């Protein structure tokens, strides 16, 4: 009789341990300041972690708590150390109807070169844009020439062409929406994403 009790207790402990086994989720401060957060759902229960260092253990009641930074470092130092350099975006601006860069954008080109050099296995996306002066097909072509001008500059400065993807979006994606045939210097640009 006693042996049966012990066996039953052992079974119950095993079952409890099984229920308690869960996962740890922690939201961290984000460099860009955004705190969209993470929802954690287990069965019918859900918790939203939307503050830096908000955490939950799914093996418990899914309650949110604030975790110590030291505890995060202890558990996650390897995973965090392996985080790639955060992707970064740049904008270069052009003179009207041309592939000539604005004077102020030349320094940005140097920043891009320095950024590419510090990333292992860097990849670059270059997308050209225009304002709405001129016809759509002409602006498609101009936006592609702007992107190509940026690519040529980077290649001339030692960046490999095969790490770049290039596109022109013409006047379709303005930063500042305008009526047709309107000048808008902020839309005459190339967007360069380095990752």
């Amino acid at each position, binding site marked *: 009789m006693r042996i049966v009790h012990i066996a039953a207790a052992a079974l119950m402990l095993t079952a409890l341990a099984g229920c308690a*086994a*869960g*996962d*740890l*989720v*922690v*939201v*961290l*401060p*984000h*460099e860009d300041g*955004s*705190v*969209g*957060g*993470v*929802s*954690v*759902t*287990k069965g019918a229960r859900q918790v939203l*972690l*939307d503050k830096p260092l908000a955490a*939950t*253990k*799914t*093996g*418990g009641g*899914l309650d949110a708590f604030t975790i110590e930074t030291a505890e*995060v470092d202890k*558990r*996650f*130092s*390897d*995973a*965090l*150390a*392996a*985080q*790639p*350099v*955060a*992707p970064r975006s740049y904008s270069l601006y052009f003179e009207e109807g041309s592939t000539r860069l604005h004077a102020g954008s030349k320094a940005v080109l140097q920043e891009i070169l320095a950024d590419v050099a510090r*990333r*292992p*296995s860097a*990849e670059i*996306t270059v997308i050209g844009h225009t304002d*709405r002066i001129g*016809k*759509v*097909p002409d602006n*498609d072509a101009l936006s592609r020439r702007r992107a190509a001008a940026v690519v040529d500059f980077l290649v001339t400065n030692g960046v490999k062409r095969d790490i770049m993807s290039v*596109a022109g*979006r*013409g006047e*379709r994606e303005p930063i500042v929406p305008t009526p*047709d045939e309107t000048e808008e210097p902020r839309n005459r640009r190339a967007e360069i*994403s380095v*990752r």
Partner: protein
Amino acid sequence: MANRNSSVLGCVAAIAVLLGQVAWAADPIGTVKTLGGAATITREGAAIPATLGMSVFQADTIATAAGGRIGITFVDNSTMSLGPNASLSLDTFRFDSTTYEGQFQTTLKQGTLAAVSGRIAKQTPEAMTVRTPSAILGVRGTKFVVQAGGG
């Protein structure tokens, strides 16, 4: 957009641009950017040793050995990295680089994961999910860490 013909041409070009931007299943979805110790990428049943600059694809499983770690940057600018003895499968990845719409579903089977969400989660909150052995995470845009079996 001066006449009807050019606006029709514009539409055709727009559709061509859109078609060109959708990532197909055969396209790489990310690149190995950091590596320490031993890590493997399992693709169609075969485990390949991971190297810096290697492409990863939908349905790959990323795994690290004891002392291993790996970091990947995805084409939507999200980043994920694993600590030692970890395993992460890249279940679904769809991304439209024009609209930024997409879906990114992963499963952390074991170990630790650090992640920063990218354009998919920013465009569509909770379109990025991480399944753990006990729960499912819906990412609304943030940096976060997960430890399978850690709580």
